């Protein structure tokens, strides 16, 4: 996700006029040259520009984590292996968590409605553990993370076909507490 945004920004750098017009209409400051801490979030440079022009949320906010990085990763049917896309999102999550050391998270594992209640509880636990292990490897402290499985009890999407099932086979990283919030 972040990689895509950075690639997008490089595209902007090559076609400054078009991008600038675009971002201005969103009401953001354009600062493609970097250098100033325009967002006031303690960061400067390229990354600051990315945040400022592409996100409506402050980097440290829970909203940024939930919507810009993405609070969830998805799984194939009956699987708990992390896809490449999932790993990228989790690396960004880990990055954010490293920079927000006072947050704790609950890692919620979910399954789609196909399968028995018991199996899905166990499968959700497997998935949340896969995410926990990955975040641990990325340097997120074990004491900051807890896991819970909801099995098929808390679907995100309600329809009964693959378009919804694929959204329900997920692990959601829930930010529990942020210092100063």
């Amino acid at each position: 996700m972040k990689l895509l945004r950075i690639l997008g920004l490089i595209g902007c750098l090559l076609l400054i006029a078009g991008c600038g017009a675009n971002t201005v209409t969103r009401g953001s400051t354009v600062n493609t040259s970097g250098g100033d801490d325009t967002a006031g979030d303690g960061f400067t440079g390229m990354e600051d520009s990315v945040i400022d022009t592409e996100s409506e949320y402050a980097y440290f906010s829970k909203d940024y984590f939930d919507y810009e990085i993405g609070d969830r990763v998805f799984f194939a049917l009956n699987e708990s292996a992390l896809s490449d896309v999932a790993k990228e999102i989790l690396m960004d999550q880990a990055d954010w968590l490293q920079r927000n050391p006072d947050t704790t998270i609950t890692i919620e594992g979910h399954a789609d409605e196909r399968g028995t209640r018991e199996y899905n509880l166990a499968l959700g636990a497997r998935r949340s553990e896969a995410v926990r292990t990955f975040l641990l490897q990325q340097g997120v402290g074990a004491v900051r993370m807890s896991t819970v499985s909801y099995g098929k009890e808390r679907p995100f999407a309600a329809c009964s076909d693959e378009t919804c099932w694929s959204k329900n086979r997920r692990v959601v990283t829930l930010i529990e507490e942020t210092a100063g919030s």
Partner: protein
Amino acid sequence: MHLALRVVSLLAIISFLGGQGLAQSRSDGPLQIEINEGIIQLFPIAAPQFIAESAGTTKQAKDITDLILSNLERTGLFRIVPESSHIGKITNFDSPVQFSDWKAINVDVLLTGAVAHGEDGNLVVKIRLHDVFAESSLGQGVLYRGTESNWRRLAHKISDVVYSRITGEGGYFDTRIAFISELGTKTNRTKRLTIMDYDGANVRFLTDGTSLVLAPRFSPEGDELIYTSYRTGKPSVFRLNLRNGRETRVLDTPDMTFSPRFSPDGKKVMFSRTTRGNTDIYETNLATSEASRITRNRAIDTAPTYSPDGRSIAFESDRSGSTQIYTMNLRGGNVSRISFGDGTYGTPVWSPRGDYIAFTKQVGNIFHIGVMLADGTEERLLSRSFLDEGPTWAPNGRVLLFFREEPGERGGPSLYSVDVTGRNLTKLDTPNFASDPTWSPLR
């Protein structure tokens, strides 16, 4: 007992041959159940409205008679010969029965009864069963006494006697069903532990819906429920004493615990416990709270169920790569896979008779409830839908309850019953969506 024996052998035939075409010869007399192309010739029974022997019991007599007939009809084994076609009238409980009147309308068994108020004000119900063709009583007369408010239980107890004398099997009418009531949208369901009588009467909510609750199971005495609750934030096994309402946690651990079941003696509980994402089966002694690990495997091992003799366990595991049913001994040894058909198999539940194991089976996008013998042979599917799950046995091992979930955003679960033969699929009435049924023992 001539009658009972004949019907028993017929029930055995029904259970082994399922819905396949079968015709019994009529040579052994008129008392028989015939199966033809899956259709059973129902057993004709008549029960004229019970006699009100004391003033002010007419309504009770009618209600009790109606409920008994409704119970028998719901079994799918009996044909109730309606009062409008009766020739003979029963006006006195103790007068001899004119059997010819009942033979003439092809009634096999006649049930007569009387209701009175006892000296203490309680209801007293007497019944007698008559074998019409043998022109004799079927067992002794039976007398039940109970408070007015308990008239339904009196009717259920009588139904159990009638069913059991005619079929030779135990009854299942004076029982309760615990289940999960579900309210709200599919993405935000409130779940409440709920209990009702077998026939849907006396619904009572046992939890308030603030915590998610799942999959209750009755204790062997029927006085406790064990289930999974999110009360602590994580799935944990709790037990609830139905007499005093006390709820206690079974194992104090930060790990997730779920899918509990009582041992047949009620002293132990087997359940799943998840450590670092790995789910294995554990058993805990309720007196000492000591937990011992039964399976040790990187696969998902869950849904354990004891055999009624308490010596074997059936459970589900995905150790082969897909979810299948296995049996093992109490120490986790002698593991053997018993399901080998298409698709995946889960939630095994051992019949109280010890013969069958019921299960949930998924083939592609279709779910079934089925039964197989404990060695995995004689697999038979009893239902088929978008999502059928979670079988539980009637105390006599002849009938199963499960839940069926309708697909879609507005879909939800309902309870269904089905005979072990696959006949008589019936939806149960519940106030809300209902899932995860567990059937109590006889009270």
